[in-house]
């Protein structure tokens, strides 16, 4: 088994991230301080011209919600989900 | 609604105006007082410090008048009736917060026991030179109600009126006393609680989802709520809409300020109060207020002895000003004589209201003591002789 496969098999929690693209002001706090580095600024922008984040590496997210805590505009938050045996998790 | 008996010191007393004012506040249901010591008003808060703890009330001496004038507004939004007390220099410091109370429509009472000014002036001696400041002292367009007692008994009665008017019109109310009335001791009769009418706060009957804190009814006065009841209040000094949310454009300004001003202006006839004596057939009418009214009465007597037909109009509510009545009188009399303990303040209103229809005579006094009744008498006699 590769390292990644071991990780995936033993991972206990997943995260789901919700982003309000229109409320975001593109400050990048979430991208910077995500411990798993799974967020990136979108190349596309919202109607105000800001680049909101996207969850570029969803499998790396564990739902710690640090992005949610940092966000000055309440436009992102994460939910921690318990892993199921197959596929994604339940809360 | 009648007064809460626990706050009513029923009986016949020998009190000075300051002490009587405090008792009036208690009778009206005031249970929060914040103040800062300043001569000649300090006795009001000293009595409050002694009496309020017994009524479940709270008195706190704040660190300055600016703090006192806003602490009372916090207390009002927590649900209490509240007052502060000051004199000239403190009154000037409180101006910003009188404006805040006006735009947030916070019912509260300010007692100003006027002294000689300007600046530190004559702390222990009377004046009446804050009358225009009472009306215009804060920045912006707004309306207040101001009353002027002429005796310790009236200090008691008018204190109750002040709280009632504040609740009825959701406006800051100013009680413009002076050092003379504040420090003179006279008989004060405090009646039984059940005979004292007290206006309760206009608590909203609406549920939080329907209630808008600045949505007014036909009398232009919104109903009120308090913190802690789930109303998600939003109270701001910024120009705001009916929800209390700030809106920074001329339309919101027009809507809000227009209503705030009309709230009092369109109901002036309901709010004004004055007393008249010997108006019928008078050649000269003396317009006065506060302690000067008592001195003017003597002056009028002396003038009558010299054959002049003199009437008296005593302003009890000074702001809003009874323009209509003054205009009526101006059409009938030869002169309106206005003695006041300043260099001409309310006389400007009398002149304005008279529309040039009669002579308006100012009898000024720098303050420090009351007028000599002879001086007022002479002014009346001179005014009577002059052909307009």
């Amino acid at each position, binding site marked *: 088994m590769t390292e990644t496969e071991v990780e995936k098999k033993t991972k206990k929690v997943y995260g*789901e*991230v*919700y*982003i*309000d*693209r229109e*409320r975001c*002001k*593109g*400050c*990048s*706090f979430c991208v*910077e*301080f995500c411990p798993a580095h799974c967020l990136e600024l979108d190349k596309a922008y919202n109607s105000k011209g800001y680049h909101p984040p996207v*969850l570029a590496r*969803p499998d790396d997210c564990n739902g710690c919600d*640090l992005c*949610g*805590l*940092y*966000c*000055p*505009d*309440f*436009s992102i938050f994460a939910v921690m989900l318990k892993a199921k045996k197959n596929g994604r998790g339940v809360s | 609604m009648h007064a809460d008996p626990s706050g009513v010191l029923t009986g016949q007393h020998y009190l000075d105006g300051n002490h009587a004012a405090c008792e009036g506040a208690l009778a009206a249901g005031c249970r*929060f007082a*914040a103040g800062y010591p300043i001569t000649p008003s300090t006795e009001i808060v000293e009595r409050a410090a002694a009496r309020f*703890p*017994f009524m*479940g009330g*709270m008195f706190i001496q*704040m*660190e300055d008048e*600016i*703090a*006192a004038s*806003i*602490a*009372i507004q*916090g*207390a*009002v*939004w*927590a*649900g*209490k009736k*509240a007052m502060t007390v000051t004199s000239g220099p403190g009154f000037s410091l409180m101006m910003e*917060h009188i404006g805040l109370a006006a735009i947030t429509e916070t019912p509260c009472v300010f007692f100003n026991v006027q002294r000689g000014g300007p600046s530190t002036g004559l702390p222990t001696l009377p004046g009446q030179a804050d009358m225009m400041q009472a009306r215009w002292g804060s920045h912006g367009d707004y309306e207040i109600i101001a009353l002027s007692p002429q005796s310790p008994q009236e200090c008691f009665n008018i204190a109750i009126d002040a709280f009632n008017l504040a609740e009825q019109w959701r406006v800051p109310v100013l009680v413009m006393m002076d050092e003379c009335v504040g420090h003179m001791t006279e008989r004060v009769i405090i009646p039984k609680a059940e005979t004292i009418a007290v206006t309760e706060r206009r608590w909203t009957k609406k549920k939080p989802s329907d209630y808008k804190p600045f949505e007014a009814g036909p009398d232009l006065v919104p109903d009120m709520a*308090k*913190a*802690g009841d789930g*109303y*998600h*209040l*939003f*109270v*701001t*000094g910024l120009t705001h809409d009916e929800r209390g*949310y*700030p809106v920074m454009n001329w339309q919101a300004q027009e809507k809000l300020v227009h209503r705030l001003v009309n709230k009092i202006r369109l109901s002036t006839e309901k709010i004004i109060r004055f007393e008249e004596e010997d108006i019928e057939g008078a050649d000269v009418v003396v317009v006065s207020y506060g302690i000067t009214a008592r001195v003017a009465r003597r002056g009028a007597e002396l003038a009558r002895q010299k054959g002049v037909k003199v009437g008296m109009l005593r302003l009890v509510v000074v702001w809003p000003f009874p323009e209509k009545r003054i205009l009526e009188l101006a059409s009938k009399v030869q002169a309106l004589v206005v003695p006041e303990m300043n260099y001409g303040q309310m006389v400007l209103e009398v002149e304005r209201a008279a529309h040039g229809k009669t002579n308006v005579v100012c009898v000024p006094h720098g303050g420090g003591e009351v007028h000599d009744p002879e001086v007022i008498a002479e002014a009346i006699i001179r005014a009577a002789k002059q052909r307009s």
Partner: protein
Amino acid sequence: MANEAENPVNPYLRMDRMPSIWCPGCGIGTSVNCFARAITQSKVDVKKLSIVSGIGCTGRVSGYLNFDSFHTTHGRPIAFATGLKLANPELHVVVYSGEGDLIAIGGNHFIHAARRNVDILVVCVNNFVYGMTGGQVSPTSPSPASFTTAPYGQFEEPFNLPYLADSCGAVYVARWTTFHVRQIAKSMRDAFGKKGFRFIEIVAPCPTLYQRRNRLGDGLDAMRYYKEKSVIKNGAETKSLRIDFQSEITVGTFVDRERPTFLEAMNDRFQKALGNKYVPYPLGPNHELKSQPRAQASA
């Protein structure tokens, strides 16, 4: 990702007023987020929660929070909060304002409320500048940073806010930066469980006026500076907590003590003086807690 779920802090916000006026990269919103988390975690009765703020960017916080919000005059939220709390001790009263509002024009009210130990929580967002009015110098501005009213560089000594609060008698004093989100939320939670005058300073970026004018980058750059240069020293002497221009920032919980609140002291005195004739004034929540100093808070 899916957008159907609602941000758990939404019920605490006046959603009809979003987005906020705060600039991209401003730290105020972050502090409010921490505040929202702290409220949920400490199970405060939000019906009884009143937010009082003054004038300035941080002063706008009361307008975005969906509690009883009072946006008062410049410098005076603490005096208003004193009246609010003393008139109804059942209320949880939080003053949320900026350092210019609370410490410059509001300085007098700050020191007296701390002295009296009025039972309020004061959250002071310190961004070293008067942001709302365009970037003027403030009582915490470090030398030689540049401001519109100090165009050749600030030369005055800045206030050390935890030292000031400590010396005036505050019972809880902490400082964090907006990088320290979990610590801010914990401090606020701890503060909710205490009574008396509690003070939390939150160092935050002002990207538009402080950062930009002083060529310090944007809000993110400020956050990186906080991450790099902050040192956590719980229990440190408040005298040693000065912040100079781009210097080390000492953060932590510095003071956590107990002393009688204003109302406790009042009741105590009146009872001694008046005996049975005095009916004690209600004290409000947290007063049933035993007066035990908490163990030193950890990061």
